[in-house]
């Protein structure tokens, strides 16, 4: 195979076959995918299913704590898990730019294979397209996940109720800051790692061992603040967030104050919000903290009647202010 991705590899001919066998089947293969039929046959799922799709574009492709491949698996697996489901199968479509380094593609496919195996899902169908140089930035990956819903009723952003407690599974902002600080141009010494990880085994335990989970949501783009605003407006209630209870790593806090960013708005790829009746909170925290993905779990706030759709922050000093959604993306400040 060539050491670069050529337009030929997306032609559907022999070159495509080689790419599929030598890269994708090598790392992602399983009996279903290996059949190479036009569609995948699923025989073992029944009952309500959860389906989610997402397209991943990220710069740089490799970042501390992960890469676009593992991210594309974790992101979709987590979205399926947030509906109270056990993710089982993934589809995976690659859009590659002509000239992409074949070794990078190999590394990324291998990382996807490992991530999928770790969270117990199989890639059962896929697609590859190659576009001329310049028509896309290196590579995009689309993944669709399917899982069986195990919670009844399924958690939803619209089910937060006054009297519920708001929990978070760990520290905020790690992914967002790790990516920002590794973008070209920002010379900023840190060893902050992305928190990219699958959350399905922890959410499954919460549902099975604690039950009555009202909301599960992963605060990805827009971070905790934006996600809580979405939940408050979907549920038509007010959320009170206690600033001093929100876990933020010291390095992330430091990087944020240096750059004029707010960790509450930074993206996370391996954390989730769990909202459930207050009397279940300590049990839920116990379960979360006993799991590696929830070691730093904390109770960070409450749902109350208040004013529909708004999030109020109680600051560490005891003052109150609005915690609004972000307008556009967060950009580092001038001075």
């Amino acid at each position: 195979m060539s050491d670069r991705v050529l337009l030929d590899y997306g032609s559907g001919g022999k070159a495509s076959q080689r790419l599929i066998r030598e890269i994708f089947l090598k790392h992602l293969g399983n009996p279903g995918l290996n059949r190479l039929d036009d569609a995948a046959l699923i025989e073992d799922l029944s009952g309500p299913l959860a389906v989610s799709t997402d397209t991943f574009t990220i710069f740089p492709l490799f970042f501390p704590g992960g890469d676009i491949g593992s991210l594309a698996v974790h992101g979709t697996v987590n979205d399926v898990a947030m509906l109270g489901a056990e993710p089982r199968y993934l589809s995976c479509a690659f859009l590659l730019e002509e000239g992409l380094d074949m070794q990078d593609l190999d590394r990324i496919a291998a990382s996807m294979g490992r991530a999928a195996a770790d969270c117990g899902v199989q890639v059962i169908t896929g697609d590859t397209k190659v576009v001329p140089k310049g028509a896309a930035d290196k590579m995009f990956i689309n993944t669709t996940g399917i899982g069986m819903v195990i919670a009844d009723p399924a958690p939803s952003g619209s089910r937060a109720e006054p009297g519920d407690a708001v929990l978070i599974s760990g520290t905020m902002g790690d992914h967002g800051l790790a990516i920002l600080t590794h973008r070209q141009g920002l010379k900023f010494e840190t060893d902050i790692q992305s928190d990219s990880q699958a959350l399905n085994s922890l959410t499954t335990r919460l549902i099975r061992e604690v039950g009555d989970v009202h909301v599960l949501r992963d605060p990805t783009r827009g971070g905790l603040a934006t996600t809580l605003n979405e939940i408050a407006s979907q549920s038509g209630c007010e959320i009170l967030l206690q600033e001093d209870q929100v876990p933020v790593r010291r390095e992330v806090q430091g990087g944020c104050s240096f750059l004029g960013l707010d960790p509450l708005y930074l993206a996370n790829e391996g954390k989730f919000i769990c909202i459930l009746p207050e009397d279940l909170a300590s049990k839920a925290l116990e379960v979360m903290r006993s799991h590696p993905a929830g070691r730093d779990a904390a109770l960070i706030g409450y749902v109350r009647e208040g004013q529909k759709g708004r999030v109020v922050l109680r600051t560490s000093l005891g003052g109150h202010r609005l915690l609004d959604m972000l307008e556009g993306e967060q950009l580092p400040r001038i001075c």
Partner: protein
Amino acid sequence: MNLSSEFRDPDLCRRVLEQIQHLADSPFRFMEVCGTHTVSIFQSGIKSLLPENISHLSGPGCPVCVTHDLEVNTFLALAKMDLRLATFGDLMRVPGSRGDSLKKVQAEGARVDIVYSAFDALQLAVDNPSENVVFLAVGFETTAPTVAATVKVALKQQVENFFILPMHKLVPPALQALASDPDIRVDGLLLPGHVSTITGIEPFMFLAGDYNLPAVISGFEPLDILQSIQILLRMHKEKTPAVINSYKRAVADQGNPRARKVMQEVFKPVDTAWRGLGDIPGSGLSLRKEYLGFDARRKFEPAPLQPETNTGCKCGQVLKGKILPPQCPLFASVCTPAEPVGPCMVSTEGSCAAFFKYSL
């Protein structure tokens, strides 16, 4: 969140707040000059904790907010030329007179790169020798020295495709203009911590000397701000207006002479227009003769749109502390962070944006 820093310690802050309550026995109007202070006051909830007797006004200390319409129109005109702009992220959404912004012209094909320092912009020029790169040089004394140092390096390395659009502004002349305005009733100033690291305390001494205005160079943590307010109140009580450096852990009284030297080698002070404040003598910086080759205005001669005079934006009044943002008739109705009319709403450090974002 991490509270271990003593400057965020809630108990200490509470004690200072109690003393503030005790000292604020009549109404006071304080102005924080710097946008970072504005945001910190809102973000930390200080705003909601201060006694009602104390009103806090935001001054002209957000570099984006004071960038004049004509300057915005100039860089938008440059963006439409065959060159590459390098800018701090803050400027991306600032509206020009026709509602354009760098974000919008970028979507139409203009090449705009967000950088984190002037050196990164220079590197962009070095890496792309076939393109002309223009760095949008905004900011106060805090950023001007690095830009000056970058221009010196560019000259030494004979980089011929690197330019800057100088839009720097100097804080002390603006405060001079404010202090001498008879309409402005301010009882004290929080002076900008970052700017002071360069200028030192001396350029602010006139506030107490000529205008009897107490002023405190303040850090940005909640405790810094509360202590500075407490110092202002005490000076009132004791009738001893002075300029005090209470940010000694970062600001040396004499500032940073090396940074000032580079700045003076490359730039010279000129009169310049501030948004909302008008022309202020000696408050801008233009390139000295030896460095004029780096001036994007001279090289490309952009033809900016003449600013519209009547957008209804009251940024000027806000920046002078004459009104609070919600008193602007456009606030939160016509003017929002999604569709900002003025830069005070677009800048993350603008006081209109802070009111919009944080007020309950």
